[in-house]
């Protein structure tokens, strides 16, 4: 610490020091973790290599098959056919073959390893803002929100922009959400398993050049292997020629089947480029004249040449997901609660009045923590503390919520939150580059309480599906519920949760519900429901009152 430094500077230094050199005594729950890079907590289902430089889809088996096919075929060609051809025809043949091969490999790797144009997910603040705008526009507070679309007129054509529930954004035109990679991709063409990646705005030209050059290479190898066999058969007969050069047979077979598919694909994409369409749009027939006389492609530049130039030689946008950047905390969002963040309705009147059933409360806390612990990251946010006051004749003080902008989501900031007491933070198993799958992380009912949790032993509960708590939503119940002591884990009842149980492929969902009355202020309720990303929610069920808290935790991997 330097003496004589101005107050503001000292404050700055203090805050810097406090995050870096905290002693175990002061901050028992804050571990010194190295600064993480953004790719390490990327929310999509992508794999990253070389410290975030390489980005691929989750399933890469077929990509390796592609590589093997190309390498083996070309290897055989250069080893068995090229010496003969170079000797008896011209040495230019292996040279051209080599150049084509390098080009194919280069474009393949570039397509597979680059970011296709993934749109980063909305921050909590943005999502909240959008939600508010949508609700204002719709004016409804139903449990099933109306489908969210925005219409925009582009060059005379009405285009519908859809809202992506995963990424919490209105998708730009031509963008689409890839279910395999779990990302919204700009100018989404298709997800190609052969290259092990999505094909989108940033890598479409590489993909096109890959298939084009591969077509040439395939035709080239096919042609010259046939030439080789013919030349040999002139000398020693057809069967002898095959015996002398058995590799050629394999090459011919591979090339024969490849030619049809790859040349066909190249032709198709040439058509798409010249009309400035994506595979997605073509398959859906978005701009087909069959849909209507006035239906035309608003993105086309008018002529084939400009369309081709734009697709292949246009400016290459940079990646929007800063993979190798360090996860930063945004200081303004970390403003301590005493400053009164009123915008999101979090009140300061945190009445920590506990009802008499402490055991119920504590065990509820524990179960949520235990459920969330194997699946969530260490740096997680504040728990939601909902309190009930029996003196408060019927109207409960609204819960003190963590600021939605606080580093709450498991996949966002890694800044350590301010000191909090007893609820330990759930952890994601390290080394997993993609989101944890509840199936691979079986929830155990009898987990020992994490350190610092304190309290009584856990209450057992029925049906323990693993859940990853990303969202805690508070829902207004349709009417008063019967008093229930304690809590229960059950599939969501219709009409009680925002979205009910949604079964998605490969994901299990579970709703943990409890009843609550009276309804919270609407703006707070909605903000809580939709924007708070919590890793663990603790709450105080007002067990002694005929009131309950409805908490639905939607698990999603």
């Amino acid at each position, binding site marked *: 610490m330097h003496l004589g430094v101005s107050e*503001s500077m000292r404050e700055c230094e203090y805050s810097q020091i406090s995050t870096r050199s905290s002693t175990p005594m002061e901050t028992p729950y804050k571990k010194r973790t190295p600064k993480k890079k953004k790719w390490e907590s990327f929310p999509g289902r992508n794999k990253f290599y070389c410290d975030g430089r390489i980005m691929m889809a989750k399933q890469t088996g077929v990509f390796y098959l592609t590589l093997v096919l190309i390498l083996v075929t070309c290897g055989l060609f250069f080893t068995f056919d090229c010496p003969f051809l170079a000797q008896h025809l011209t040495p230019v043949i292996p040279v051209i073959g080599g150049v084509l091969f390098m080009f194919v490999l280069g474009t393949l790797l*570039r397509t597979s390893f680059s970011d296709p144009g993934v749109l980063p997910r909305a921050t909590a603040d943005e999502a909240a803002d959008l939600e508010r705008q949508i609700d204002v526009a719709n004016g409804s507070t139903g449990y099933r929100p109306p489908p969210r679309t925005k219409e925009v007129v582009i060059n005379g054509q009405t285009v519908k922009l859809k809202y992506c529930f995963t990424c919490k954004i209105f998708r*730009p035109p031509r963008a689409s959400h890839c279910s395999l990679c779990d990302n919204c991709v700009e100018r989404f063409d298709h997800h190609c398993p052969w290259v092990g990646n999505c094909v989108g705005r940033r890598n479409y030209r590489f993909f096109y050049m890959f298939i084009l050059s591969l077509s040439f290479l395939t035709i080239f190898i096919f042609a010259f292997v046939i030439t080789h066999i013919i030349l040999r058969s002139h000398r020693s007969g057809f069967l002898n020629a095959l015996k002398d050069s058995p590799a050629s047979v394999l090459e011919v077979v591979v090339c024969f089947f490849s030619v049809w598919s790859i040349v066909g694909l190249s032709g198709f994409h040439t058509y798409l480029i010249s009309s400035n369409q994506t595979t997605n749009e073509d398959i859906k027939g978005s701009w087909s004249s069959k849909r209507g006389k006035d239906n035309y492609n608003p993105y086309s530049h008018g002529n084939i040449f400009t369309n081709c130039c734009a697709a292949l*030689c*246009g*400016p*290459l946008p940079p990646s929007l997901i800063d993979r190798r950047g360090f996860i930063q905390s945004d*200081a*303004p969002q970390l403003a301590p609660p005493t400053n009164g963040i009123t*915008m999101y309705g979090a009140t300061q009147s945190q009445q920590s009045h506990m009802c008499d059933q402490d055991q119920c409360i504590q065990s509820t806390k524990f179960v949520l923590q235990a459920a969330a612990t194997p699946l969530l990251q260490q740096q997680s946010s504040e728990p939601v503390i909902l309190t009930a006051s029996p003196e408060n004749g019927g109207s409960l003080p609204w819960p003190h919520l963590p600021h939605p902008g606080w580093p709450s989501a498991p996949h966002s900031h890694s800044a350590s939150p301010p000191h909090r007491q007893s609820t330990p933070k759930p952890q994601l198993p390290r080394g997993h580059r993609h989101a944890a799958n509840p199936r691979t992380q079986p929830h155990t009912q009898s987990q020992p309480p994490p350190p610092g949790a304190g309290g009584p032993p856990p209450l057992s509960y029925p049906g323990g599906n693993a859940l990853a708590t990303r969202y805690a939503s508070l829902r207004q119940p349709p009417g008063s519920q019967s008093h229930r002591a304690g809590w229960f884990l059950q599939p969501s009842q219709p009409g009680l949760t925002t979205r009910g149980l949604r079964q998605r492929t490969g994901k299990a969902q579970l709703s943990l519900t409890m009843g609550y009355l009276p309804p919270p202020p609407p703006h707070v309720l909605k903000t809580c429901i939709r924007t708070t990303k919590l890793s663990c929610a603790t709450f105080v069920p007002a067990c002694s009152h005929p009131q309950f808290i409805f908490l639905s935790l939607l698990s999603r991997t």
Partner: protein
Amino acid sequence: MAETHSLQDMRQQAAVAAKVFIQRDYTNGTVCQFQTKFPSELETRIDKQQFEETVRTLNNLYAEAEKLGSQSYIEGCLACLTAYTVFLCMETHYEKVLKKIAKYIQEQNDKIYTPRGLLLTDPIERGLRVVEVTIFEDRSLTR
């Protein structure tokens, strides 16, 4: 009298009162443009003309980045011929313009927005989805 806060000061001391998001304007297609509509939350803080001027300049800069002209074609062809290794040595045109935009936003923040208790966030940090305007608490009223 407008209080002058340094950016660092604001970030360390001021509390966020609200955030306003300027969404994208897709009426010209997929080109990066932002809506120039003046948000009502900023009415008390900044002059409408000034704000719209900022957004318009940003839009022009993004349009320049994505422009299809001879320069971009030459760059594209050269890159293709060198198997994109040329970008190991030089920046793409888009990246150069993004740097220009970052500088412009910094300059606007220093001159216009920070003295009024506002902060513009570079859209690239939000995936070019929104221009985020952070409104800080107006301490001048409380002091």
